[in-house]
């Protein structure tokens, strides 16, 4: 019986991912944004970096290197923005999927099916892997075409492994956000706020040593911090797989913590929504 339910849930999970894929295919203009933003946003910050460094003034560059461990501003920024784009995809996509279902009136219908509640929570997140992979490819090409930087293939490969290893942790963060959305209602400003806070804490555009001590402590509990730091180490400091192992282990642990938290929050909020009749209201 349990086996049958597991198989059914798995089928529902795949069906949910296929539904998201189909929606993705129906809106081809989304691809324009998926090329425009991953290229232009970091490119502008690289130019800001050039302005702030006085066009590469040695004193300014030394100061930056002392704080970030590198003078490679371009790769530093592009890696940070790869995470920013991933967070955007996670928060705007699956993070708001429950809310979209609520607005289109399909959430109640989904909740009436006998599948596990984890299916609507995690199902839509599966397709974001496609966006994330696409964005990483676009950004690697942009770094090369716009700034003439060819990423070292060992570093690129290791970065890709870091991304794969961080998938559970990142999607657990996305699921936690998605669950909370059931409570808040209007999602736009909340997505902006959460993404903004995570961007600030995890050192998207600046080294996290620039943050005050308490903020650095919070940053150590956030999966994106480790992903960004590991990718920068792999691409800018020739780190070996062994060097990155501790970060990967922490990412697995955080995946567990955020995953359990997401499921718990979702169950509590779902129960409350059923009692108050909030599922269909927005």
């Amino acid at each position, binding site marked *: 019986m349990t086996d049958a339910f597991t198989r059914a849930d798995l089928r529902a999970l795949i069906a949910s991912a296929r539904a998201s894929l189909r929606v993705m295919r129906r809106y081809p203009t989304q691809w324009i944004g998926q090329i425009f933003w991953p290229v232009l946003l970091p490119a502008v910050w690289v130019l800001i970096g050039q302005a702030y460094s006085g066009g590469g003034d040695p004193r300014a560059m030394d*100061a930056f290197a002392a704080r970030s461990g590198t003078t490679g501003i371009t790769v530093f920024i592009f890696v940070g923005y790869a995470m920013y784009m991933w967070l955007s995809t996670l928060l705007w996509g699956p993070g708001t999927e429950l809310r979209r279902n609520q607005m289109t009136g399909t959430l109640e219908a989904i909740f009436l099916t006998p599948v596990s509640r984890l299916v609507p929570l995690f199902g839509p997140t599966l397709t974001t892997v496609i966006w994330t992979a696409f964005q990483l490819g676009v950004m690697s090409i942009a770094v090369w075409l716009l700034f003439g930087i060819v990423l070292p293939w060992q570093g690129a490969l290791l970065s890709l492994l870091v991304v794969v290893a961080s998938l559970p942790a990142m999607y657990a963060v996305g699921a936690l956000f998605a669950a909370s959305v059931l409570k808040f209602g209007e999602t736009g400003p909340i997505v902006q706020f959460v993404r903004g806070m995570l961007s600030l804490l995890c050192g998207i555009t600046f080294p996290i040593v620039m943050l005050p001590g308490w903020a650095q402590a919070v940053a150590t509990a956030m999966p994106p911090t480790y992903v960004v730091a590991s990718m920068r180490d792999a691409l800018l400091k020739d780190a070996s797989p062994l060097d990155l192992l501790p970060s990967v282990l922490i990412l697995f642990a955080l995946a567990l913590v955020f995953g359990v938290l997401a499921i718990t929050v979702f169950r509590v909020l779902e129960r409350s929504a059923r009692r108050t009749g909030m599922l269909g209201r927005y």
Partner: protein
Amino acid sequence: MDELRAAVAIARKDIRNLSRYRLVVGSMIFTPLYQGVLPGLLFGASFAVAGRVVGLEKTIGTDDLSGFIFFGGVISSLVATAFWAMGMSFRNEQEMGTLEPTWLTPTSKSTLVIGRALGGMFWLVFSQIAIFSVGILFFGLRVRWEMLYALPALVLATIALVGLAHLLAAIVLSIRDANLFIDCTNFLFATASGVAFPVSFLPGVLQPIAFALPTTYATDILRQHALGTRPLLDPVLEYAALVVSTIVMFPIGRWAFSAAERRMRVRGTIGQY
């Protein structure tokens, strides 16, 4: 006089509408702070030597990082008002189904843009006062009275942007995915105006575009007076270029808007998007 009353009524309606969404009003103040100001300040400070942003000083003639960011933010918000509050608002009305009744009133269509401009300017001034207060209290922002000398440049840039908003409204009413268009072009326009870095850092092929925008000169004139930055060109030349680009941009926008309106009336597409 009737047109003025209509414009004021549109502005009052826009102000009342937005004031009902307190979270959105709050985010007008906080979003620029945590998405632009804070990352910019921390990024800039990571290049600092003994507390001085020597690189920025070499680039623009002053190491006043917070001033550079906050005054760039003024022009950035002005541009965003033209793109979102004026240009994009026509699509919002289209989606709500209120554009056709509005269009049927005897008001000039241009008054619809100008009314939105007034409403947008109200929120711009409100949010900038709040953002600057936060800047002065927490980020060491210093405000000099000499910045008032830049007011004529800001007024000219605003007139140019109202012209641009006519053009944007014409495009928004003619295309399907207006949101993506406005989002991308707003970003490009603000970047090319030098709000985040001096336009001299743009790649060579993009610099002529930057120098064709009135907001590039308004940004530079504002920073010269408010921060004492080195000018991009001779200030007299900058004013001349600002006046010329405003004179060019305003009628082009009006013409495009009239053409789009005529086309929509002929084709009956005013309610379609």
